[in-house]
């Protein structure tokens, strides 16, 4: 009762007044994944630092399910008062618009983006028994014969990265879907399947131990966490750039002043040595972009994945 009254008062008061008094209550960051994933952990690392800077409580709320689109739809419909933010990500804000039958939100029109925090690159991995050990040899094989590649699920970033490679290099790799990256890794380690797209982070140990081979990475530059892996771009496929990114977005209509203040707080938090160290450990690139850059980035992502999804027979 009291909260709805506060909401009503907040809604009736003019926007500038809202921005002046912000933040005066608890801010929640809605995360579309279960606790413990790397995206969730980014939010949980950030929350206390932002909270300290803004002088108000910042809580992380998990609302997992359906590739975080449930959480995205909830935030899209939330009050644009600066107290609800969404941990935006490539699934909900880049790919799902083209792969889900009903979504309930528009990734560009329904959000004001605050920042892109960082991204984890994907890697094209080969089993230790695969007949190739470089991307060049792989491309030759994939052009000569039918090739399968695995990923952690239909319509995931890793899957569409494979479709992006198909489109850019003119390949016809077929996708084998798994319930998650860990399951896909079981088959890759057992050499049941020869190729897989997966995040770099959890595979560095396996790559260094020689249990699997890394052929190429999907970032424009090499990853500091694994500098020996070449990029697709330097091997002649500049279009194969794919990020598993996370950022922060507010419901559309959130006043610019609030977005700017919130961005300032996250920007400061992102300079924290602990966060920087954690990002490096995860093999996560430190981005920390401004609201304007974030808006442009998300629009680009939506355009890119739309093109890829429409080109892939498995989605059509």
């Amino acid at each position, binding site marked *: 009762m009291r909260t709805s009254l506060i909401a009503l008062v907040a809604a009736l008061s003019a926007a500038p007044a809202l921005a002046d008094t912000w933040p005066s209550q608890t801010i929640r960051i809605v995360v579309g994944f*279960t*606790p*413990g*994933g*790397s995206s*969730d*952990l980014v939010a*949980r*690392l950030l929350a206390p630092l932002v909270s300290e800077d803004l002088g108000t409580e910042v809580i*992380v*709320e*998990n*609302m*997992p*399910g*359906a590739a975080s*689109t*449930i959480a995205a*739809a909830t935030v899209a419909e939330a009050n644009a008062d600066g107290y609800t933010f969404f941990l935006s990500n490539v699934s909900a804000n880049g790919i799902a618009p083209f*792969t889900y*039958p*009903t979504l309930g939100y528009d990734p560009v029109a329904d959000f004001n983006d605050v920042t892109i925090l960082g991204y984890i690159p994907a890697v094209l991995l080969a089993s230790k028994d695969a007949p190739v050990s470089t991307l060049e040899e792989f491309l030759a094989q994939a052009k000569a014969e039918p090739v*399968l590649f695995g990923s952690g*699920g*239909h*319509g995931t970033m890793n899957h569409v990265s494979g479709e992006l490679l198909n489109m850019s290099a003119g390949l016809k790799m*077929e996708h*084998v*879907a*798994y*319930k998650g990256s*860990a*399951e896909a*890794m*079981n*088959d890759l*380690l*057992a*050499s*049941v*399947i020869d190729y897989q797209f997966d995040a770099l*982070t*959890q595979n*560095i*140990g*396996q790559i*260094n*131990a020689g*249990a699997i081979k890394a052929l190429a990475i999907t970032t424009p530059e090499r990853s500091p966490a694994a500098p020996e892996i070449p990029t697709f771009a330097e091997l002649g496929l500049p279009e194969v750039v794919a990020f598993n990114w996370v950022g922060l977005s507010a419901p559309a209509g959130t006043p610019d002043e609030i977005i700017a203040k919130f961005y300032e707080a996250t920007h400061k938090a992102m300079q924290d040595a602990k966060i920087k160290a*954690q990002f490096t*450990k*995860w093999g996560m690139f430190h981005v920390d972009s401004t609201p304007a850059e974030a808006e442009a980035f998300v629009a680009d992502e939506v355009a890119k994945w739309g093109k890829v999804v429409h080109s892939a027979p*498995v*989605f059509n």
Partner: protein
Amino acid sequence: MLENLTLGFSVALSLGGLLYCLLGVVLGTVVGVLPGLGVMATLAILMPITFHLDAVHALIMLSGIYYGAAYGGSTASILLNLPGTANTAITCLDGYPMAQQGRAGVALMMTAVASFIGSILGLLILAFCAPILARVALNFGSPEYFTLMVLGLLAAGMLSKGSQLRSVAAIFIGLFLGIVGTDISTGVQRFTFDLPELYTGLPLVAISLGLFGLPEVIANAGRKDNAPQMVGKITMRSMMPTREDLRRSTMPMLRGSAIGSFFGALPGTGSLIASFASYVVEKKSHRDPSIFGHGAIEGITGPEAANNAATQTAFIPTLTLGVPGDAIMAMMLGVMLIHGVAPGPRLITEQPDLFWGLVASFLIGNVLLVILNIPLVGLWVRLLRIPYHMLFPAILVFICLGVYSVNYAVVDLVLVMAFGLVGYGMSLIRLEPAPLILGLVLGPMMEENLRRTLMIFRGDLWAIWDRPLSVAFLACSLALVVWSLVGKSKAKRELAADL
């Protein structure tokens, strides 16, 4: 080895190591004892707190909750016929009848003993055989998983208190329910009615709490007699097993530990399947299977040893391969990653203090759990010794809290209520929920693995003969069917002879 153990104990016996171990196992026992309050939910709630601890301390505490719950879970199964955790569901089958016969104390004592023996044997395997078992598990691909699940479902077909026909029917209901969700290969929505919450399939926690938890509440709501059905006082004297109990339990506990260690170490299977498999093995290998379901001590000691052994060996693939076997291990992996620990083949050599510290702390934790669960069992029983009119509304709250805390989805609450009614209906027509749950879990996994196998083999299922492990699993399945049929006709002959 000695050097490693010394290192491990130096970590585990430090003040912090001991403190977080104790905290973990106490919390685990509470979570295990109370039906509806799940390990997953507890770990999720506590994870943010552990970010401020050392990696080793965080893992010691969270692991303590996990294996502690495997001890506590059987208490509610025995006293209330409500599984405290999903993994102890099978303990209801014989534990509750034992309680009804006034042998609750013995059942509690023997499950604690079985849990300890299972854990210690599982722990020995974790410490000594990790590299070997890891190599076996590493050879598992989709064809192996598919054939293993064929074996699992066939085993479930025989797992029933009543007729095999009823349990097969329940398995099929489970398989059909497993169809709900997104088609894994094409992304097509099957029976999701535009509810995004159903895109990943029917939530297992909600369905199992609905089928196992609610029917009991409904069945008891109409009763005038309001005293809990827990019979007798749990005194140390009433807990003393007879020589006969010990003799009958020895082999089931050893077999259960072996079965549990095996399934625990396999990624994708775990405590639940281990306890089911152990129950089937005990029932099928017993000279008189009809005593099962009526308070057979073998039916609780085998599965309890199995599920505890599995909780220990579950750490093998997680720590040595970086491949979590189940959702709980996936969370553990998450905790390791935030602390910069990269689980993988080199973890044991690169961070021996972490691996051996965990091993040593598991040993200490299991000793603490025996103390918590045998002399102090009265304390936990008191948690449950609350009158029905107070206990069951509280259980309803716990069920709803537990279900909601997994996905924060209202749809899950509706499902738990709906499946509570379904479960009550099933109990009226004596249809067992356990095979249904197994069908629901294994169905989608089998479908995925079969479809992947077919894709990888380019549609040629006969290529499975090139995978020796798959052939072994299929041979086991065949043997199980033959054994079951022969055993059945033999039982019929014996019955005829008696007449």
